[in-house]
């Protein structure tokens, strides 16, 4: 018996969200009095022994060449194989795009109850109950999993990374489960930027910025903070910014440490995607903007005057 965690990687490097899933798996294992084991699929540049730093005892590395491009069906078959072999009681994923494609398939293959979007460790005091985010971050549901095997996917940035010292034992394996059926014809990586779903700090702009020519304010502030950039839906709809930056109910839901909203009114559908952020800062010239009700800090003022001063002030702080 063990707790199994799927470690997702992108172009050979392990994702931050996966380290969080590893930490979650390890804490769950401790609660259940067992240890945590990781599964990595595809070639990787990272030293997998280092997963020991997040409490992982053993890593199964499926390094078949054919598995280098992501395929949720073959990936879930591989994980099924190892979950059965290990008799895993709990299998943990990150609730990111890969986890969302694999975990539900695994749930069917193993007939294991699934909770996606977990925000806390399972409560085992009365059955096995997992707290998850629902209504786009506006509420939580405590869900009981009735099956003997259980699958949990953890919302990025909700549990944190817990590191310790240790080395994991790495076992290299080949699998026969490589059924493809999907021919990849092109990949387009959004490079150079901090990926929005994983960013600690996000600077976001709305229609209040008047036009794409003014986005320097957002990108420059993001740059001094090492932040990712985001935007409200109308901004993406009118093509001031790319679609993948759109956050909210119908866009990406994020939970950074710090979310800075500039010229965004704070409509309920926008809040649905950002209300899990730890600290929210709102800069808006309208004191009645609804966003102030959801904010921790705010400046009522003209973004074109305020933001350049904030940038200067942060530069000063960083160089101090």
């Amino acid at each position: 018996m063990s707790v199994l965690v799927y470690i997702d990687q992108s172009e050979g490097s392990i994702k931050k969200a996966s380290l969080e899933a590893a930490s979650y798996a390890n804490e769950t294992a401790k609660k259940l009095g067992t240890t945590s084991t990781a599964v990595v699929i595809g070639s990787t540049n990272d030293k997998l022994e280092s997963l020991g730093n997040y409490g992982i005892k053993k890593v199964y590395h499926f390094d078949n060449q054919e598995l280098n491009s992501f395929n949720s069906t073959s990936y879930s078959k591989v994980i099924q194989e190892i979950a059965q072999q290990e008799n895993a009681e709990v299998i943990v994923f990150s609730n990111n795009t890969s986890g969302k494609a694999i975990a539900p398939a695994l749930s069917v293959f193993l007939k294991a109850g699934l909770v996606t979007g977990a925000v806390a460790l399972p409560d085992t005091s009365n059955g096995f109950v997992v707290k998850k985010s629902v209504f786009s971050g506006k509420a939580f549901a405590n869900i009981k999993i009735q099956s003997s095997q259980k699958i949990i996917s953890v919302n990025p940035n909700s549990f944190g990374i817990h590191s310790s010292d240790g080395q994991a034992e790495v076992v290299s394996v080949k699998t026969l489960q490589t059924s493809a059926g999907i021919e990849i014809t092109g990949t387009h990586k959004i490079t150079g930027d901090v990926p929005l779903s994983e960013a600690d700090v996000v600077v976001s702009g709305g229609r209040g910025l008047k036009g794409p020519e003014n986005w320097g304010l957002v990108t420059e502030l993001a740059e001094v903070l090492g932040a990712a950039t985001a935007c409200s839906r109308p901004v993406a709809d009118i093509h001031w910014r790319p679609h993948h930056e759109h956050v909210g109910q119908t866009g990406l839901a994020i939970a950074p440490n710090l979310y800075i909203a500039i010229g965004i009114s704070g409509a309920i559908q926008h809040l649905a995607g950002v209300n899990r952020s730890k600290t929210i800062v709102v800069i808006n010239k309208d004191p009645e903007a609804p966003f102030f009700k959801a904010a921790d800090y705010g400046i009522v003022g003209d973004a074109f005057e305020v933001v350049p001063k904030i940038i200067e002030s942060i530069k000063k702080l960083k160089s101090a």
Partner: protein
Amino acid sequence: MKILVCISKTPDTTAKIAFADNNTKFAGDGVQWIINPYDEWYALVRAIELKEADPSTVIHLINVGGADSEPIIRKALALGGDEAIRVNSESNDSYFVAAQIAEIAKSGSYDLILTGKETIDYNGSSIGAMVAAFLEKPFVSHSVKLNIDSNNAMITREIEGGEESCKIALPLVLSCQKGMAEQRIPNMKGIMGARTKPLKVVEPIAGEELTSVVAFDLPPAKAGVKLVSPDQPEELVRLLHEEAKAI
């Protein structure tokens, strides 16, 4: 081509989120119910566009839900679905719901099964992948573009940190999100026509529920915003650094 579009019913995006019966149920009284936006705007509208390009295409809708789902099913028919099936069950367990959809899908021999990326109430983002697993068919999640070229689907999907284009032979299951299509409003002809389109109600097959809701809770209220004067942005930076420890 035969397309099955999975339609779920969710509270309107502006609905007040509150719970009843000792926090075990969503307080739905007075709430306006809509088709889950991902299902309507992206999955269904893209299916309709494919039908417009190839009028021999047939679009079936499926909903697993109670009789109170019928208004949203009629709306989906008004937008352009040809017929609908409602599996009469109010289960919220994804495994159970997906098993029902897979059962209907098996008998309908569909070339494409489209779902939304997730429901905006339970945020499960699971049904599409589960249906594909039940059917042992390929699954592509988070699709932002879909074109059909004879027997193949050309898809662009979101992956971690980017996008990927791929080609897959039909049949397959696809979850849809922004980029696939644009929101539409049903016209009068559609609304009138929807009244007489077939809406078949079937009872669920026996199946297991693997999860159940114990209770809901609401996040703690925010303490209230701390306003900083626009003349003192350095004060904001100080607070973020020293108090919030966010920078």
